[in-house]
């Protein structure tokens, strides 16, 4: 006979507004096995938890049901509460009466009735719960960082400094990411390269950090503390160990048609190239699609000119495996596709550029050596128009529903830098809202307006078109004066929305980490666990989780690193005791369960079994608790029902079905 306590949470008015919590308590109070029931405003608060602890002691409860928010939110909290009161933590069940009841129903009667049924299902289940003891699994003391931008770099350095091995896997030929492409950073206007390249060097030189650039994660298996990852090192056709980064080959290469990704395609590069002078690793890469050798079988000029003998046309992709205890996703962002907004003529006119392209145009290491010129004719512009929110805050289907967060600030930065360097250039910014929360951010934006006379006009631009003079005309409305604005300009800069990198979906699915509708990785809790993925052992760093600027990215990277270090510092992890187990008297040894187990957790032994007074040797399935993840595939494959799952047993689930269908 169980002694069950039921605790109904109001969650302030979140639950109590739609569910009559008193009625729930009254209804379940007299149910069989229930010896105590009460409600409270916030069960998850310390006071609420104390209520539970006290009740456990006072009523000698053998199990508790908390009717509250989703178990994905607070199951852990209440398990700890139970543990503190001396109750096995697995004698706790949650009835989800918030997300799956009060928040989706309006009618109070209906909500209350459903809450009672959900509570009863949880009671039925908890009556069949058994105390479980978690096991242990070893932690591999090595972390994997996917993505070598500033987020990945910072996480790597912080983890490495704490004394753990870290591998960075970066898919482009160099680490550095978007930050290496930037000219200056807001709001301090310090040079981006000057702060990111030393960090890149630090990564390269750190004894605990290994950089796998031009590499991609191929496959992820395993679980927290013990991930088994396959990494593909793509063929560079250059021997990294020999290349000195002298760049002679890049100058001699006769093919000049490669799109220079680092300069956003504003100029071209050779088929053999080093993305930029400070690249890490500072080695050349051959882009086979443009290389004459790969196209025609001839050429080979790079090889002839390489004094280090590093060119290797025969190189092949290489796949290797490594074990990790934790994985940090730092895959960053990319500029969203602005070609869908061709009312701004991006695909038609070279002088319509994105902000990142402008960044390269203004960068001293960029295609124009830092001199601001029009891409069409290389001439000095006199008027520049910035258009904000291109593709952001857009629910029409063409863009992204979210605010990209960084555009207001970088546009103010661009406007200010241009006005400072070229006072003759008129700068106009068309905005919907100027959003500048952040330390010294609004002051920065105001400086652009007040000190640098940047012309901020409220109103989205309707259309940009080429005019008779070969320049561009911007058609808009000044919403403050309610007048038509027709501005002739030389350049138009689009503040394009940012979006998670291509490929992140694939990575998320390999990691079984969840992503939202915009492909941003989901955090385990939006407020309390913002740098963790709901998948144990996977952490989030930088824009892959949501738009953020450099300081925020660096903070999050550090936070993710701390979480990783916290994990790696443990020698063993407590494993989920909700694993499969077999009833020896019923097992037929038929191997069905073994075939469906994705973890290879089931093996067979010949064992002497006492059944109905007969002693006989049988082939019996055995579950390795450390490997079993508790999916339950085996339980259904088993025809005799010998295989069952702790915490989600056949009887428990059927009891829930019964309670719901009563």
């Amino acid at each position, binding site marked *: 006979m169980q002694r069950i306590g039921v605790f109904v949470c109001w969650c302030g008015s979140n639950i109590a507004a739609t569910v009559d919590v008193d009625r729930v308590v009254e209804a379940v109070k007299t149910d069989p096995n229930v010896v105590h029931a009460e409600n409270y405003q916030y069960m998850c608060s310390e006071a609420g938890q104390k209520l539970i602890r006290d009740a456990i002691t006072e009523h000698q409860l053998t199990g508790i049901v908390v009717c509250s928010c989703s178990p994905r939110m607070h199951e852990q909290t209440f398990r700890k509460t139970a543990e503190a009161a001396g109750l096995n933590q697995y004698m706790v069940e949650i009835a989800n009466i918030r997300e799956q009841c009060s928040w989706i129903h309006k009618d109070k009667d209906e909500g209350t009735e459903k809450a009672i049924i959900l509570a009863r299902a949880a009671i039925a289940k908890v009556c069949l719960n058994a105390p479980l003891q978690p096991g242990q699994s070893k932690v591999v003391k090595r972390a994997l960082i996917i993505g070598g931008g500033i987020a990945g770099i910072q996480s790597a350095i912080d983890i490495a400094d704490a004394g753990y091995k870290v591998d960075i896997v970066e898919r482009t030929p160099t680490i550095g990411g978007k930050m290496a492409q930037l000219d200056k950073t807001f709001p301090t206007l310090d040079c981006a390269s000057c702060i990111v390249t030393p960090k890149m060097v630090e990564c390269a030189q750190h004894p605990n950090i290994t950089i796998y650039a031009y590499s991609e994660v191929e496959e992820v298996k395993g679980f927290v503390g013990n991930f088994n990852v396959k990494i593909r090192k793509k063929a560079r056709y250059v021997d990294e160990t020999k290349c000195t980064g002298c760049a002679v080959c890049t100058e001699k290469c006769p093919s000049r048609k490669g799109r220079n990704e680092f300069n956003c395609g504003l100029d071209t590069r050779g088929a053999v190239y080093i993305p930029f002078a400070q690249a890490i690793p500072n080695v050349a890469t051959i882009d086979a699609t443009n290389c004459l050798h790969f196209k025609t079988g001839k050429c080979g000029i790079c090889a002839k000119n390489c004094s280090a003998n590093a060119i290797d046309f025969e190189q092949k992709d290489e796949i290797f495996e490594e074990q990790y205890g934790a994985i940090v996703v730092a895959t960053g962002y990319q500029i969203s596709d602005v070609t869908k907004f061709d*009312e701004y003529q991006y695909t038609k006119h070279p002088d319509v550029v994105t902000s990142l392209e402008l960044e390269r145009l203004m960068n001293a290491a960029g295609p124009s050596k830092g001199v601001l010129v029009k891409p069409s004719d290389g001439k000095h512009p006199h008027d520049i128009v910035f258009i904000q*929110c291109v593709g952001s*805050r*857009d*629910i*029409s*289907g*063409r*863009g992204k529903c979210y605010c990209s967060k960084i555009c207001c600030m970088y546009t103010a930065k661009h406007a200010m830098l241009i006005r400072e360097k070229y006072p003759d250039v008129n700068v106009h910014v068309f905005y*919907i809202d100027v959003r500048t929360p952040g330390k010294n951010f609004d002051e920065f934006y105001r400086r652009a307006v007040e000190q640098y006379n940047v012309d901020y006009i*409220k*109103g*989205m*631009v*309707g*259309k940009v078109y080429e005019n008779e003079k070969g320049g561009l005309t911007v*058609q*808009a*409305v000044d*919403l403050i004066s*309610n007048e*038509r604005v027709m501005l002739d300009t030389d350049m138009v800069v689009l503040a394009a929305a940012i979006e998670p990198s291509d490929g992140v979906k694939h990575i998320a699915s390999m990691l079984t980490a969840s992503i939202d509708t915009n492909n941003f990785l989901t955090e385990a809790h939006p407020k309390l666990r913002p740098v963790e993925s709901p998948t144990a052992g996977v952490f989030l760093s930088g824009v892959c989780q949501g738009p953020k600027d450099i300081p925020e990215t660096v903070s999050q990277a550090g936070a993710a690193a701390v979480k990783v270090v916290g994990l790696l510092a443990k020698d063993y992890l407590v494993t989920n005791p909700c694993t499969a187990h077999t009833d020896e008297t019923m097992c037929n040894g038929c191997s069905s369960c073994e075939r469906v187990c994705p973890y290879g957790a089931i093996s067979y032994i010949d064992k002497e079994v006492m059944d109905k007074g007969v002693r006989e040797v049988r082939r019996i399935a055995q579950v390795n608790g450390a490997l079993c993840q508790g999916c339950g595939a085996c339980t259904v494959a088993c025809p005799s029902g010998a295989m069952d799952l702790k915490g989600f047993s056949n009887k428990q689930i059927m009891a829930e079905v019964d309670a719901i269908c009563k």
Partner: protein
Amino acid sequence: MNNEKALAEEVVSFSGTNPRNCMKCGKCSATCPTFEEMDLHPHEFVSYLASGRIEKLLQSKTIYKCLSCFACVERCPRGVEPSRLIEAVRDSVVGQKGADYLSPDRIPERLDPDLPQQAITAAFRKYKK
């Protein structure tokens, strides 16, 4: 609820679109080819109707100036479709007043031998119920 608000809500409801999705970026007006011909502009139509005001819109000559070119519909980042709202206001005016904007006896003087039929049909459809 006062009459104006009730009428505004009615007009919004048969327009088939929701002006409250508007984030006030003004792109509808920015993109409108007839902006200069209008006394009240597309973004004002959206804004007025979103706040339950319609009197001024009923008097506006904008309802006869809108070309139904759907540029605002296409480019609105919020899917508001301002042209639907303008048309809905026009429908309610044309319906109420017995449509005096275009009268058939004024047609012949404007008739050009090459004018396609659709222009005449369309004009009547739009301005005279």
